[in-house]
């Protein structure tokens, strides 16, 4: 945005030059500079000091603006608000830095330093691209808690990562979607290809849910190559619909695929927030994050001194991952099946990636009687389940 303004101002100036006038003009678009050489002292090993509730000040770094009202950043901010209510923090104890570009380390660092300068002692960075700056600043500010979402790094002291078993909810949504389809073709708009284990594992979990209730159905995947691409996501969904898919699931940030499904009179499975708000006639159910479960637990642990700086990987059990209520037009059998599977997950009887799993290129993954480790789930799933086809 700012860059566009800068370019426009420059063009305006060029017009001015053409008229032989040496005036000046424009708009602010200065990139933020910042320090790099992490010369700060390394964080002292051992436990962090707890912070009293009224001394806590939280800085939140968002990649876009929660005012969008749906999708990724909104969902994180709803979690922050839930934490604020649950713990009982004042409004002045939370600072938000919105629209921080994840591709500009200098701007990320400026935003975080701003928060620290304003007295923040807890930083929640909600987007993947903020990870390395968190790691760096955690060294320089050993007394500040850094918690970074959806990545993988931590330092075991004042910098950790939080993420979750969203594949559990995806499996459940697969049950509903598998029952819903009439054409036995389901579409899936994916942000990344099989180099990303989170996306690929999510597709596999969804496909396994579908296969459980509908062995004849196939899942067609289209990759957009971007986490946030309003136009590309809608187009990918439309292409899938055109090729005969009648349920559109998604792993990307906008509501585009769901609204495209609604427009075409098809169904869909939303993601991040409850997308039945955005496409009430299409969304069967939504796979949702309840980040409030983590934010509340994290701030609590900081207050009572139990924070341990290790990575958090929560799921259905912790309430971090949920499935929205089924819509009225969902298949009547779905509810019971989902409840049963959910119960098995909570009891630990069923973990989605159990036993031997067949891939779509004829390989076999896993062992009978065992389940995939978290390490494999978070970093090594680069295969698709047998009923998946990538377009």
């Amino acid at each position, binding site marked *: *945005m*700012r*860059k566009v*303004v*800068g*370019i426009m*101002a*420059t063009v305006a*100036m*060029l017009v001015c*030059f053409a008229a032989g*006038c*040496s*005036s*000046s*003009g*424009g*708009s*602010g*678009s*200065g*990139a*933020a*500079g*910042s*320090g*790099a*050489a*992490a*010369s700060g002292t390394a964080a002292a090993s051992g436990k962090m000091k707890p912070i009293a509730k009224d001394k806590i000040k939280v800085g939140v770094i968002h990649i876009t*603006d929660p*005012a969008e009202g749906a999708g990724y950043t909104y969902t994180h901010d709803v979690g922050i608000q839930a934490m604020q209510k649950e713990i009982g923090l004042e409004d002045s104890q939370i*600072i*938000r*830095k*919105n*629209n921080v570009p994840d*591709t*500009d*380390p*200098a*701007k990320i660092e*400026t*935003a975080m*330093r*701003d*928060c620290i*300068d*304003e007295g923040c002692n807890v930083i929640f960075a909600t987007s*993947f*691209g903020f990870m*390395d700056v968190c790691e*760096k600043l955690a060294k320089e500010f050993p007394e500040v808690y850094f918690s970074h979402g959806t990545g993988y790094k931590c330092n075991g002291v004042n910098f950790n990562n939080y993420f979750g078993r969203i594949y559990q909810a995806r499996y459940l949504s697969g049950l509903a979607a598998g029952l819903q389809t009439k054409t036995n073709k389901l579409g899936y708009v994916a*942000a*990344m290809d099989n180099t*990303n*284990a*989170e*996306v690929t594992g999510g597709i596999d979990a969804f496909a396994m849910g579908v296969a459980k209730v509908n062995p004849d159905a196939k899942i067609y995947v289209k990759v957009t190559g971007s986490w946030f691409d309003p136009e590309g996501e809608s187009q990918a969904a439309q292409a899938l619909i055109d090729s005969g898919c009648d349920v559109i699931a998604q792993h990307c940030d906008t509501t585009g695929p769901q609204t495209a499904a609604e427009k075409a009179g098809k169904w869909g499975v939303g993601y991040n927030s409850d997308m039945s708000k955005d496409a009430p006639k299409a969304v069967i159910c939504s796979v949702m994050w309840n980040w409030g479960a983590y934010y509340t637990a994290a701030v609590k642990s900081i207050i009572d001194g139990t924070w341990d700086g290790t990575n958090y990987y929560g799921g259905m059990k912790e309430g971090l991952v949920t499935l929205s209520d089924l819509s009225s037009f969902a298949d009547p059998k779905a509810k019971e099946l989902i409840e049963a599977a959910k119960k098995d997950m909570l009891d630990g009887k069923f973990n989605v990636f159990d036993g031997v799993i067949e891939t779509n290129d004829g390989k076999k993954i896993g062992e009978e009687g065992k389940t995939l480790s978290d390490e494999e789930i978070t*970093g090594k799933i680069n295969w698709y389940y047998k009923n998946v086809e990538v377009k």
Partner: protein
Amino acid sequence: MSSKTVREPLLHIVKRDEIPAKKAMVLRIVAFLLALIAGGLFMLSIGCNPIEVYQTIIVGCFRSNMAIQATVKIMIPLVIAALGVSLAFKMRFWNIGAEGQIIMGGVFASYFALFHSDWPHWVLVIVMFLAGALGGAIWAYIPTFCKVRFNTNETLFTLMLNYIAYYIICFLRDGPWCDPNSPGFAKIATFDDNATLDKVLGVHSGWIIAIILLVAVFIYMNYTKQGYELAVVGGSSATATYAGMNVKKIMIRTMLISGGICGIGGMIQATGADATLSVGVAGGVGFTAIIIAWMASLDPRIILIISALFAILEKGSRVVESNMGISADSSAVLQGIILFFIMGCEFFFRYKFQGRAKKGSE
């Protein structure tokens, strides 16, 4: 009827004589106050107290060492890039390509930061510095060569090269320089500590380089033969030719320096501020620098002041956003309003509106 009457417009713009420096200063102050008032009205309209907003901007920049350091960090690339383009503009060479020259400086320096981080620190820093200057200079040489050889339009040429430079980073990020440890999120790896600039007084040492460059450019422009030559070419290349100057040579030499300085800015941003090469390495600085250079009338001393004002506005706006809960778009509008007035007053230095001439005159 054979004769057609041409109606003159009610108002038309005419060039005015040079106005005295004192009057210009008064005009500037008036424009600044008007800007604050207009910005204040906008703030009122969205329900903010304007005095509180302006106060927050200033306080947000100077309330602590960390805030001052952050403001200085924003200033560094602005100063360097503005110095770079001002050399070209003095010669009336429209270098709109600072953005691309910054990027290429960053790219060249990053090669050594990524693949030779085991070199001794000072050797590496000096090599990266020279590489950055070389990268920017090459990116400035291409359009200049075409200008002196084929008389191409340098404004368009340098502008377009910005986009090519931008996509070169995208290519490197997604392809050959992609960090293998970052699945699903293409980025270039963070540089080794050995390959980043040292901090002096809490800010990466780019600020020292900026000050040295500022002094050097000031001396070069005002007290050297080459500086005189480029000013003559800027005044009139015909005069320069008549005086026996090699205009083509002066043009290429000046642009190599101009691009080289911008490239150094890119090197500092990548190895000092970012500790990696990102697509935001220039981040619009190359365009803002053009505005700064002209607002400063191409005087390096004033460039320092104007850059500081830009940095304060930028840093302070960010604090206003988070403290007062206004959106980034609203603070961009505020910045735009302030700059609009200040830029508008420059217009009135050179032109004035004149009413329709009375019938029969002329």
